[in-house]
């Protein structure tokens, strides 16, 4: 079954057609790449998938369910999580609290429980704590649990953002340029992390990336976007050898 199906998606910003007839199908467990030159509309696609922008036309189906025009938090609850091009952690919260924010939606206890500190509250808080710790261990962030998020090194902040997104238990994870600003060694580590995430969390991944080594190294299929339209869709080998793609990136 397809996790995500996007049909003829388009959006206008005033007179500008930013994305036009965008189609995309992601299968369960797939690691999919979305590439294209700067300004091609990749992040705009992400923003439509997560409900930040309302598409002007077309359909977004998540496991067959239409999610057009749902609010961001509804879409998050239905199973799409994302990271951002420029890191947007809750900087003043501790590392573990960042992850807990993502977990909280799924643990229900009410205000009375939390103010009266009932047994139920302590049990649930313990479960949340345990799950958050487990998640941090996957990213080897558990030793930093009580540190403020803004005090982590850059590469670790990127990984924490992925951990926070995974805390919402997504079925589809969107990574917006996860390797941006990383050195080659950090990028190498990140590739391992992404592979591990897909294996351990049973999640499909769609990623935007400029680092071709990373994209070619881990993505199974790739869509190339140029001036808001799909230029090509295929395997990494097909994409690198396509003259159109080379032209879009390098010019004539």
């Amino acid at each position, binding site marked *: 079954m397809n996790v995500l199906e996007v049909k003829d998606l388009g959006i206008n910003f005033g007179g500008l057609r930013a994305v036009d007839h965008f189609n995309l199908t992601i299968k369960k467990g797939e690691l999919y790449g979305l590439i294209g030159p700067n300004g091609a509309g990749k992040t705009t696609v992400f923003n439509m998938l*997560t409900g*930040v922008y309302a598409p002007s036309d077309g359909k977004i189906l998540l496991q067959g369910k239409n999610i057009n025009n749902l*609010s*961001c*938090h509804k879409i*998050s*609850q239905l199973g799409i*999580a*994302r990271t*951002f091009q420029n890191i*947007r*952690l*809750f*900087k*003043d*919260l501790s590392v573990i*609290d960042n992850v*807990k*924010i*993502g977990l*909280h*939606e799924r*643990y229900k*206890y009410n*205000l009375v429980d*939390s*103010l009266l500190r009932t047994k139920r509250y302590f049990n649930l808080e313990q479960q949340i704590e345990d799950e958050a710790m487990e998640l941090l261990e996957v990213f080897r962030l558990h030793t930093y649990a009580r540190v403020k998020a803004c005090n982590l090194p850059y590469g670790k902040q990127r990984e924490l953002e992925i951990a*926070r*997104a995974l*805390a*919402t238990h997504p079925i589809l994870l969107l990574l917006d340029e996860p390797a941006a600003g990383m050195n080659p060694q950090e990028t190498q580590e990140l590739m391992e992390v992404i592979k591990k995430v897909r294996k351990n969390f049973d999640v499909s991944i769609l990623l935007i990336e400029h680092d071709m080594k990373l994209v070619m190294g881990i993505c199974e299929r790739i869509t190339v976007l140029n001036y808001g339209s799909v230029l090509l869709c295929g395997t990494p080998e097909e994409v690198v050898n396509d003259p159109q793609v080379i032209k879009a990136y390098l010019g004539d």
Partner: protein
Amino acid sequence: MSEVSQFLMQLVNGINAGSIYALIALGYTMVYGIAKLINFAHGDIIMVGAYICLFAISSFNLPIWLAIILSIIVCALLGIVVEKIAYKPLRSASRISLLITAIGVSYFLQSLFQLLFSANPRPFPTIINLPALSIGSISISAPYYITFIVSVILMSILHLFVQKTKIGKAMRAVSEDSQAAQLMGINIDKTISITFAIGSALAAVAGILYCSSYPMVNPYLGSLPGIKAFIAAVLGGIGSIPGAVLGGFILGIIEALTKAYISSQLSDAIVFTVLIIMLVFKPSGILGKNVKEKV
């Protein structure tokens, strides 16, 4: 009365006013943190709280505890309704539109209450019937120490709420980055409503405590304490909860000492001067953070 006990007495006055300012300032600072809005109608919620408590006791003969709870609930609901009707439609508008709307809501509430209950002040019933407390040479009247105790308790509960509960954490996440918070599954409308409800509930308590010390109710009752609490919030660092408490107490004490030792007519002017000095030298407030933009 000796110099020392005179000074202590003024300090007690300052702490009393400061507790009330702090309670009101919490509402300003929380709403600012979450909605990036200076809610100038916040002061008038105090007035509404005082009127409701007054009528519940004098017209409907409700017991005092019930009147207080009723006043808190009505004000919390009023806070939510004001946000839904006046501020929510403007959420993507510029900040200045929101600010002007808030001033409009403030005048609306004042005029509404003037129309309904006339501008004549009404006496507020005595609701705190306890003996005065004598410590050494000074005696502290019941409304004063009750105000202090109630404020400290409420502030502690609020602190626990924001630090420890799930909704509190959601509130902190929304105040840091509302978009990222939404994308983590946090319902931002609900979070904003809760923030307004809590702020307004604290304002209701502040209104009742204020009227216990100065037992006169009129439709403009909220504006001056409201403005002073706003100054307190800015002084402490707007957006910061401990800052609002600190700012409230500092402002209350400065005001009381000015009244006693400099001039009671000049006290408001001096309080506003403190604000100006603060804005010139440390615009982010005592506990506020300087947001530096990286270039």
